[in-house]
């Protein structure tokens, strides 16, 4: 019996190659079944995310990887150049690799949790199509339980590792759930948009966009289902919002202490969180001296993201130990080291 995982990911292949082999979520089950229709293959699961596409298959005889490649040549136009970007794991390496993938240890953002859900959906789609049997069923079930243990017994998902997610986490640390929070974007830059989008995805209630060019503010507000505010009027909005994301190209501070002091009483001293991702800074450092105001600049956010990354990296060894320990208990007849 041969078990293989043939795949490419963000480390092995550029996005042009990855997108060539990507499989839509609705077609994952069908793709898994497609593998089992190849000569000599009895099981198949196809995993496809924006950072990886992997083909897991079980064959009764050797040459499983070659048969998948030949299938990919026909269906996805696999060329020799593309071939160089593929990696191949076989036999017990497949189980180890799968556990690392599900635990987020092979992800672009170390320890991210979204991948576990994506793998689960891929497996379930293949399972529904009856493309999995004894070997892959046990291997995937084991990987899910190992990932659960890795997450609960190590700090692999603790802290945040990107500036945007650090900012969103901080917002939650200040406001708790963001469902009652109102956000204002000052400056219609890409980074503000991404950060505000993250806040909205975590439940922020409404969004206001202001920019020197009102047209740009209108366009971004429309994109985000928010409300545009003329640049001369943003101070009035300050009394109603909770989070301000600022990234203008202004050479001087856009938000000063006086402007914030003016609205404090009107806000009933509710917390106000400024995410300043502009260089030079948009928020006057003196604003941070106000009791209920929190100001996080790019340097501080980057430092916290770096700390989060270091913290997660430290946990890798503990995660690997858990995987090794758990896989020693996995017995699949016919699976060799």
């Amino acid at each position, binding site marked *: 019996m041969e078990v293989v995982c043939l795949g490419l990911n963000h480390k092995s292949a550029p996005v042009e190659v990855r997108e060539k082999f990507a499989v839509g979520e609705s077609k994952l089950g069908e793709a898994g079944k497609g593998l089992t229709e190849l000569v000599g293959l009895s099981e198949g699961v196809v995993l496809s995310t924006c950072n990886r596409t992997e083909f897991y298959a079980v064959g009764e005889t050797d040459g499983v990887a070659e048969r998948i490649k030949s299938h990919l040549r026909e269906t996805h136009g696999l060329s020799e150049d593309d071939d160089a970007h593929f990696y191949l794991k076989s036999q017990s390496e497949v189980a180890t690799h799968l556990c690392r993938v599900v635990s987020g240890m092979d992800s672009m953002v170390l320890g991210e949790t979204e991948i576990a859900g994506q793998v689960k959906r891929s497996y379930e789609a293949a399972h529904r199509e009856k493309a999995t049997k004894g070997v892959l069923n046990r291997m995937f079930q084991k990987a899910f339980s190992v990932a659960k243990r890795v997450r609960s017994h190590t*700090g692999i998902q*603790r*802290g945040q590792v990107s500036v945007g997610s650090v900012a969103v986490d*901080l917002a*939650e*640390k*200040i*406001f*708790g759930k963001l469902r009652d929070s109102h956000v204002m974007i000052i400056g219609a830059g890409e980074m503000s948009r991404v950060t505000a989008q993250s806040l909205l995805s975590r439940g922020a209630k409404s969004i206001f966009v202001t920019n020197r060019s009102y047209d740009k503010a209108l366009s971004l507000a429309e994109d985000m289902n928010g409300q545009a505010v003329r640049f001369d009027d943003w101070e009035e909005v300050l009394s109603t919002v909770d989070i301000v994301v600022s990234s203008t190209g202004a050479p001087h501070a856009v938000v000063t202490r006086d402007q914030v002091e003016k609205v*404090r*009483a009107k*806000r*009933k*001293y*509710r*917390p106000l969180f400024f995410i300043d991702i502009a260089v030079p800074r948009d928020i006057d450092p003196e604003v*941070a001296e106000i*009791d*209920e105001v*929190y100001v*996080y600049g790019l340097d*501080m956010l980057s*430092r*916290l993201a770096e*700390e*989060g990354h270091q913290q997660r990296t430290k946990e890798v060894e503990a995660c690997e130990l858990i995987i090794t320990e758990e896989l020693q208990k996995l017995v699949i007849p016919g699976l060799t080291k």
Partner: protein
Amino acid sequence: MDRQVLILACVFVALAAVLGLRSVRHGARGWGTTVSMLGAFLCQLYVLGERGRMHGQCPLHDVGEVALFIAWSQTMFYLITGPAFRTSLLGLFSTPVILITQIIALWPGNLEQTVTKELSVDYWREVHLGFSVMAYGAFALAAVAGVMALVLRQKLKKGLSGNLVGTMSSVTNLDTSLHRLNIVGWVIFTVGIIGGVMMKVEGGLAHLIVAVIIWSLYGLLIFRKIWKGLPPKVMAWSTIILFVAALWIFAAV
């Protein structure tokens, strides 16, 4: 027997502290602290119940009983508000105050061993004492939430991460808990004050006057917060100072 059960309560509170510290170290929330506090609460309840039965009155006859009553009330409010409002680490921060209060109760001479049964009961006096001391439990917990809010705010302002910040509740949640505990304490205290006004006065009126002043100050703080809002640091410090001052003044009176 009372002392042994009270020592067991201390063990539960200490265990709650250890489990709370462990959850901070591991950066994960757990139910260990709450369960241990429930154990402490049941022990406190047993001792208070027994002493109340022996007195035939509210068990507030000596320093030990007053301290134990405050510890019980604080534990009760923690169990009601902490897990319900997801005020993470409120238990951990409360444990030193509860432990100290229980040690005061246990201190030799503070908890009278020979209890005499009272023949007559002034129900207004019972209401006054019971409700007032219970209110102090809520005020104590509000002060603890105030300390937590100050610690968290300072750490967030300095951009400090770490397990303590990660495990603590949000700033807004702490501010809300503090405010609600002040309101709960104040409402209970109001009933206590009414009991005080209605009871038969023995000795001077000094302690009742002090109680009314403290009640007014808490009321001022609460209504100012509701109507106009207050900077969070002012709110937290006022709550802490009011609680400490109230205890100190009462001890003096």
